[in-house]
C-alpha cells in the first residue's frame, strides 16, 4: 500500500512540476507587454520601463520561474498586473461564485442523473429505460451554453422569473445570489446528469449480476427495494469515481457558462486576464485548475487502489 502511495505521489508531483513548466513556457512566449496594456496608447517609454520594473518583468526568465514556483509553494501567488492586488485575494473573491456554482451543478446532476439511472436499470430494456436513455442522449448532445441561452430565453426574457445574467454579490443576501446562480447551475448540470444517468444504469446492471446480490436474492431478500439498495451501494463506487474525473470537464463547462451568464467567477477571470494580459493571474489560475484536476486524479487512483487489491499489486 505504501509503495502504491509513494509511486502515485511521485508521478503526481512530476506531473504537477511538468505542468508548471509548460504553463510558464507557453505564457513566456506570449507577445505583448503587460505594462503597455496598463498605460495605453500614448505612454512614454520611461513610464513603461518604470512600470515593468515595478512588476518585476525586468528580471531574467529562469529567475522569474523560480520565484513563481517558490511563491506557489509558500502560498504567495503574486500581485495582479491589472488590479494591483494579491492574486490570492482575486481568486478568493471569484471562488465565492465558482465554487457554489460547481457544487450546485454537481448536486443537481446527481439528483437527476442517479435516480434516472436506477430507474432505467430497474426497467432494463423497458419503456422507462428507453425514455431515460433518450433523455441522456439529448443531454449529451445539447451544448450547455446553448441550453443556458434557451433557459435565459424562457425564464429570464419570457417569464421574467430569474435574472438573465450578472451576479449581485453575496452581500446582497443569499436569495438574490442564489437566484443568479440557478439557471447557470442547471445549464452546467445537464450534460453531467446525462453522463451520470448512463453510468449509474450500467453500474447498476453490473451490480445486479454480482454474487452477493444473487446470494441476497437466494436468501429470500426478495424485496426489490432492498435489492436495489444493495446494488446501488456497489454501483455508487464507479459513479463517485467518475464524479472526481469529471472535475476538469466541469471546470471547462464553468468557463463557458460564466461567460454566458456574465458571472464574476474564476472562469471569467481567466478569460479576462488573458484579454488584459494579466499573465500572472493566467499562470496562477491555469496552474490552479491543472493542480485541482491532477489531485482529483491522484485521489481517484488511490481510491481505486484501496478498493481493488489487484491494482495494488500491479502498481
Amino acid at each position, binding site marked *: 500500500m505504501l509503495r502504491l502511495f509513494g509511486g502515485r505521489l511521485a*508521478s503526481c508531483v*512530476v*506531473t504537477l512540476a*511538468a*505542468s508548471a513548466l*509548460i*504553463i510558464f513556457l*507557453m*505564457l513566456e*512566449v*506570449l*507577445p505583448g507587454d503587460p505594462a503597455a496594456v496598463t498605460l495605453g496608447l500614448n505612454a512614454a517609454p520611461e513610464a513603461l520601463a518604470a512600470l515593468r520594473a515595478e512588476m518585476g518583468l525586468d528580471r531574467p526568465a529562469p529567475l522569474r520561474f523560480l520565484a513563481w514556483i517558490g511563491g506557489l509553494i509558500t502560498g504567495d501567488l503574486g500581485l495582479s498586473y491589472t488590479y494591483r492586488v494579491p492574486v490570492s485575494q482575486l481568486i478568493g473573491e471569484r471562488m465565492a461564485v465558482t465554487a457554489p456554482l460547481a457544487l450546485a451543478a454537481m448536486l443537481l446532476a446527481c439528483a437527476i442523473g442517479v435516480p434516472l439511472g436506477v430507474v432505467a436499470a430497474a426497467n432494463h*430494456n423497458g419503456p422507462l429505460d*428507453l425514455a431515460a436513455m433518450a433523455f441522456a*442522449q*439529448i443531454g*449529451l*448532445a*445539447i*451544448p450547455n*451554453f*446553448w441550453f443556458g*441561452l*434557451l433557459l*435565459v*430565453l424562457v425564464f429570464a*426574457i419570457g417569464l421574467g422569473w430569474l435574472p438573465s445574467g450578472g451576479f449581485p454579490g453575496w452581500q446582497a443576501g443569499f436569495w438574490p445570489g442564489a437566484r443568479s446562480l440557478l439557471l447557470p447551475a442547471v445549464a452546467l448540470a445537464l450534460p453531467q446528469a446525462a453522463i451520470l444517468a*448512463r453510468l449509474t*444504469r*450500467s453500474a447498476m*446492471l*453490473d451490480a445486479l*449480476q454480482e454474487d452477493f446480490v444473487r446470494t441476497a436474492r437466494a436468501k429470500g431478500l426478495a424485496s426489490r427495494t432492498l435489492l436495489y439498495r444493495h446494488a446501488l451501494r456497489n454501483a455508487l463506487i464507479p459513479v463517485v469515481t467518475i464524479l472526481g*474525473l469529471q472535475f*476538469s*470537464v466541469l*471546470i*471547462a463547462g464553468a*468557463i*463557458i457558462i460564466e*461567460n*454566458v451568464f456574465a458571472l464574476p467567477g474564476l472562469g471569467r477571470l*481567466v*478569460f479576462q486576464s*488573458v484579454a488584459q494580459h494579466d499573465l500572472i493571474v*493566467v499562470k496562477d489560475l*491555469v496552474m490552479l*485548475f*491543472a*493542480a485541482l*484536476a*491532477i489531485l482529483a*486524479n491522484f485521489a481517484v487512483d488511490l481510491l481505486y487502489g484501496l478498493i481493488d487489491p489487484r491494482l495494488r499489486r500491479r502498481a
Partner: protein
Amino acid sequence: MNAPAAIASARRPRWWTGPSFLIGAALSGLVVLIALLSLVWTPHPPTQLAILNRLKPPSAGNWFGTDPFGRDVFSMIMVGARNSLLVGLGAVGLGLVAGTGLGLLAAVRRDGLIDNLVMRMADFTHAFPAVLTAIMMAAIHGPGILNAVIAIGVLNLPYFARLARGAALQVWTRDFVQAARAAGLTDWRITWAHVLPNIAGVLVVQATIQFALAVLAEAGLSYLGLGAQPPAPSWGRMLNEAQTFMAVQPWLAIFPGAAIALSVLGFNLLGDGLRDAIDPRLRRVR
C-alpha cells in the same frame, strides 16, 4: 461484464440497436449532405451583406431569417456544417493517427516507458481541458480554426492510445499472430498486416464518438471566439453573436444551437449503433 449478462442481452431482440443506428446514420448523413451541398448551392451567398435587410424574422425568402448584417441565417448554417465537420475530422484524425501510433508502439515494445508516457499524457490532457489549451494557444497565435483542431486533437490522443494499446495487446496473444511471428515476420510487419486490421473496428467506433465530442467542443470554442474567424460562418460564433439580440430576435439563437445538438446527437447515436453492431457485449456499458 460476465457471461450470463452477455448471453442475456444477446438473446434479446435488437430493437435498441436498430433505431439508434438508423437515427444516428440518418442525422449524420444529413449533416454531411448539407455540408457537401453548401459547396455548390446555398439559398443566398452566405457572406453577402444586405444591411437594409437586417434582422428579418424567418420568411419564405429567408427560411431562418437574417442576422444583423442582413445575411441569410439558413445559408450560414449550411456553410457552418462544413466548418464543424472539418474541425471534427482534423481533431479526431490527429488523435486517431498519433494516438493509435503510440498505442501500437506501446503494444510492440511491451515495456513500461511508452505506457507510462501515454498515461502521463492522459493525466496532462485531463488537467488541461480543451478550453484552457485553446485559450492559451489563442493568446499566443491568435485564435483560428487550426488552434481549435490542435486543442481538441490533443485531448483525443490519449483515448486512442489507450484503446489501441489494449486492443493490440489482445490481438498479440492470438494464435495467428504467434504463427506469423514464428514464420519470421518482423514486429512491424505483423502490426501492419495483422494487428491493425483487427483493431480497426474498435477504433472506428471510438472515432465516431470522439467526433461527436469534437463537434461539441468546437462549438464551445467558437462561441468563446477561439475557433473559426469571420466571415467564415461557424455555429458557435453565430450563437455568440445572437446573444445580444435574444430579447428581440430569438431565432438567431435557436437555429444554430439546434444544428449543433442534432449533429452531435447524430454522431453519438451512430457511434452507439456501430458499437453494438461490432461488439454486442458492450451494448449496455457506457
